[in-house]
């Protein structure tokens, strides 16, 4: 255990999560697993993610990771969501190894959102 458990980036993302909240008329996914609850909302126009929001219940790394994901994928193509892996966030924040399982819950939520957006004609969960 390091002396300071949170990187400057994790602290900043946790302190001011600009993408926290819900979105109306958006596709969404929701996962409750391994002690983490996560909800993602996406508004997509012509295949591009115009708005991305999250709600999360979990430790600071989970909240920071959800915010980092939204920050990174807003404005990108909805099809990019299938490329998302938890390891991107694990390294960039960074997240301690012991918490990898929680970030995998975010990965599950992103995959699920990707399926909602690309897999079916119904945008609503």
């Amino acid at each position, binding site marked *: 255990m390091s002396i300071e458990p949170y990187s*400057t980036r994790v602290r900043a993302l946790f302190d001011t999560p600009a993408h*926290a*909240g819900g979105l109306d008329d958006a596709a969404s996914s929701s996962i*409750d697993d391994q002690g983490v*609850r996560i909800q993602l909302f996406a508004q997509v126009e012509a295949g591009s993610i115009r708005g991305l929001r999250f*709600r*999360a219940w979990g*430790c*600071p790394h989970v*909240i920071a990771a959800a915010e980092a994901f939204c920050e990174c994928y807003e404005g990108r193509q909805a099809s990019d969501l299938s490329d998302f892996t938890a390891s991107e966030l694990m390294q960039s924040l960074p997240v301690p190894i012991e918490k990898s399982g929680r970030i995998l819950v975010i990965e599950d939520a992103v995959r699920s959102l990707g399926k909602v957006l690309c897999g079916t004609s119904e945008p609503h969960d």
Partner: protein
Amino acid sequence: MTDKPDLIYLDYAATTPVDPRVVAAMSRLLEMDGDFANPSADHLAGRRSSVHVANAAEQLAALLHVHPDRLIWTSGATESNNLAIIGAARARQHRGQHLITMPTEHKAVTDVFRALERQGFDVTWLLPDECGALDIDALEAAFRDDTQLVSIMHVNNETGLLQDIARIGESCRRRDVLLHVDAAQSVGKLPVDLGQLPVDLASMTAHKMYGPKGIGGLYIADRPGCHIEPLMFGGGQQRRLRPGTLAVHLIAGFGCAAEIAATSLAEDLEHLTTLRDQLWAGIRDVPGIRLNGDIDNSFPGILNASIADIEGESLLLALEPLCVATGSACNSQSQEPSYVLRALGRSDAEAQSAIRFSLGRQTRSEDIVVAVRRYRSAVSKLRDLAPVLAA
């Protein structure tokens, strides 16, 4: 970096800053022109040092209303607890091997009993009520013919709950069973009159009462049958019960802290009660909050509350710059829910969301105002972040 406001230290139950008067008393003893010598040495300098040790014993003894000869210096309450419990259990094992304690004791007690269990001792763990108090009838029922030692803490380090040591001690005396009390959270902060209380062994430490870290004490009553075996060997100091060169500067610091405590105790208590009441009044209406312990039967320097549906680690970070504890400082590294709160019947989630505010002499009313504001805003921030439960 955003400039964070100054830290607000509300973790006095973990440790306290050292009183400047104590610092002054100690530093005089560390230097060449001070009394740095080994107090066991047979020369003038040694005898000068030993005067400081004797003075400190007088100061601590005065606080506790006991004779100074009944005190042993140790490295802290953890060592005192080990020495008292293992020492007494071994000294009396020819009479019996049954011991009684509670699962809500500090780790420095529970882990000692677990070690004794592995060595063949038989330990009864008495469960507390939902506030944390010991049911005296349960204690009476737990006594056996071979019971030798009961160990119950005075003030719980997580909840501040006070045990009724006088009644517990009377029960033990009637049975000729020794009572050890972990008084680490009460000595110097509450009146602890060991001259009156039916207590045989009591552990204490300087650093929770504005003294230095690394020095503690063990009180051993002057009664037939009340003796302990040493855990360490190596010299004739302290009646061979705890050999080793005495740390004169730390002992003097502890003595000085005890003397200050004796004079300021009533005022300290009034100060803490006012602040604790201000704090609880400020947060008690937060939806989902639940006090752990019993505010009417508590040391006022500690307030512990759980909050429904809030994740503990995020709460702790959102509370910055408040320095508060989630559980006992010893297990705050791992995220396991407090075993003390679990024993009070709290769920894992409730235990994990618990925050212990502990107040001290330097805490000001303005600090409590900030603490209340921070707590309320942290809870509402995290609730806003949380997913809305699907119907």
